[in-house]
């Protein structure tokens, strides 16, 4: 693709100032989204995926705060800082909250949330809610908005949309509600939709249908997606490029085929090993041992070294740099692992960590 990216995130840092300390939920991530692309953001629970997406929308709640980095959407500076003395202060061209609300949220960038059961207001009919969002973000009168809402409901595969228009959310199944949410996101004709684990709450058959629907609609409307998920299966199904997040950092970024077949980071590898794959026959799945450390006090060196099966002494000391390993078809393949750096990984001693123990620290029976 020769186009400019529509969304560029550079070195984004979002921190939560809690009583226990500063939680570095997102700690310097960079990625971009090109027009018409579906970009995945993958990682375990607590990796900072949702905080990253909230940061893009500037919807981080107290005590959270975006403390650094740049987010550019088309020509708009959603987040931008400059140095004033010792402090970083927002630059002038950074949109105000009011401008974010009127110019970006809903009409340029829309969000589909994880839980379709919770994302619709129970006291209004779905038609009412859909119409409200259309009226808010598009220049349509009420009648046209109603027509548009019904068209969108039909578009996302709701049968008999005229009748269902006046139904309440509790009268819909989970899959149908997720379709309504997708209709709601698309109805405002945004150029970018952030999908925050939209299929996690659905069963697999419905998940498959929703993914098909999204692919069709994406081709039809040319909307870009930032697809947040922890499911590598969904990534393989739908994404063009993937960012893998671990503990507030992006550890690997590549096109989806590269990521699956030329995996460069042990964490991505571990993620792939922990799910069943139709192209491999194995006796038992290999889970990632241990739990993610707290982002208040991340491990020294490489943040994954406490759980990495390939961790060596040097990993506890030197922080890997996020750099381009290879390129594939014009797309960079980035990863941050000392294996790919010339810092003496090969001569360093392997270390004992959670990856070599069982869960809860018991010895693994091999």
């Amino acid at each position: 693709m020769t186009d400019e990216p529509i969304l560029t995130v550079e070195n984004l840092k979002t921190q939560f100032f809690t009583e226990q300390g500063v939680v570095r939920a997102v700690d310097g991530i960079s990625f971009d989204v090109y027009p018409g692309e579906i970009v995945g953001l993958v990682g375990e629970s607590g990796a900072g995926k949702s905080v990253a997406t909230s940061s893009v929308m500037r919807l981080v709640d107290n005590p959270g705060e975006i403390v650094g980095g740049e987010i550019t959407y088309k020509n708009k500076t959603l987040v931008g800082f400059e140095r004033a003395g010792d402090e970083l202060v927002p630059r002038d061209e950074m949109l105000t909250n009011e401008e974010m609300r009127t110019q970006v949220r809903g009409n340029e960038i829309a969000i589909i949330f994880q839980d379709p059961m919770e994302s619709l207001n129970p006291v209004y009919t779905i038609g009412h809610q859909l119409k409200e969002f259309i009226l808010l973000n598009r220049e349509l009168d009420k009648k046209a908005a109603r027509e548009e809402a019904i068209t969108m409901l039909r578009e996302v595969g709701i049968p008999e949309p005229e009748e269902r228009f006046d139904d309440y959310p509790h009268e819909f199944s989970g899959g149908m509600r997720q379709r309504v949410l997708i209709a709601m996101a698309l109805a405002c004709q945004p150029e970018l939709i952030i999908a925050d684990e939209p299929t996690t709450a659905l069963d697999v058959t419905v998940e498959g249908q929703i993914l098909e629907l999204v692919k069709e609609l994406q081709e039809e409307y040319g909307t870009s997606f930032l697809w947040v998920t922890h499911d590598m299966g969904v990534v393989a199904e739908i994404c063009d490029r993937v960012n893998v997040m671990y503990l507030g950092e992006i550890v690997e970024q590549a096109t989806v085929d590269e990521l699956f077949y030329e995996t460069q980071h042990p964490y991505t590898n571990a993620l792939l090993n922990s799910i069943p794959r139709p192209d491999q026959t194995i006796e038992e799945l290999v889970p990632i041992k241990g739990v993610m450390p707290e982002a208040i006090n991340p491990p020294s060196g490489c943040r994954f070294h406490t759980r990495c099966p390939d961790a060596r002494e040097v990993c506890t000391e030197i922080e890997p740099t996020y750099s381009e390993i290879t390129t594939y078809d014009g797309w960079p393949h980035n990863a941050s692992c000392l294996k790919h750096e010339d810092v003496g990984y090969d001569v360093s001693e392997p270390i004992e960590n959670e990856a070599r123990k069982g869960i809860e620290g018991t010895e693994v029976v091999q």
Partner: protein
Amino acid sequence: MAHADPDTQADVEQEPVDDEFEAKVGLSYTLAKVKQDTTARLGMYIVGAVIFLAAFVTIDSNISTLTFGRIDNFVFAENVLGNHPERHPPAAEAETTLPPFFADGGVLSHPLGTDIYGRDYFTRLIYGSQVSVTVGIVATGIGLIGGTIVGAVSGYYGGWIDDVFMRTVEILYSIPALVLVIVFTVFVSGGRPDIQYAVIGVGIAFIPVFARLIRSRVLSVREMDYIEAARASGVRDRNIILRHVIPNSFAPVLVLATLQIGVTILIVAGLSFLGYGAQPPTADWGQMLSSARGFMLPSPWLSIWPGLAILVTIMGFNLLGDGLQDALDPRIKD
């Protein structure tokens, strides 16, 4: 953007009553559940009757002649009703106190007797219902609206707004309601207390009750995804609070408001009794009790009738409130 009231929409779609997917929301569903509950139904009838009396029954001197035979009643409800000043009694005409019709010396034309000025007590009781219902609804309304705004705003925004609002409200809450209202009434009225000052005072005194309740609901509602979704689609804060937060926090407030109407009536009656509410010659139950205070032994009925009226009305609102609470609480299955 105008939108249809969700309750009326629910009415329309709940016609198939036996449908197992029938909506578990909406006014008609709630009312249906209230009707199944005997005590709540009783409360509903009492409240309905009192409101009917207050709203529709006007015993004009002409009509009363037709309805109740000869009644030399004069009602004196100018303050509330805007009645004609010519209804003032010919003072010398009747100075006798009649007992109720079933007691010795009672007449059927004055079913509950007359007061010390010879005014028909039944008529005054009925006009008293206007004062009580108006007082209950207006004062509770002031508390409800004020409390909802304060509670919803501080619950939604949190932080220093929450601190300022809730601490102010708690200061208000720490002063006994009766004292607060008396002081307020005397100050605002410039030493000439009357019922409207009492109503406003009671309304303000009840703001904390509603504010605290709705804030506690808002704290959980604001974490719901649909609030986040509304923010993410660019809905302005004011509309999020009015259209998304408050409607979803309102069920317990509705219950409290119903119960609170009874409490309000009682407090205002108490204020009238103490002389800080309705002033004579307005027909108000509390004021009637106050006037009857000096005649308890010779004419006990003068105290009993307004007392009973207050009792029954408040009981009606309380029963209805309890019934609503059960109907709106999803944990209580029928």
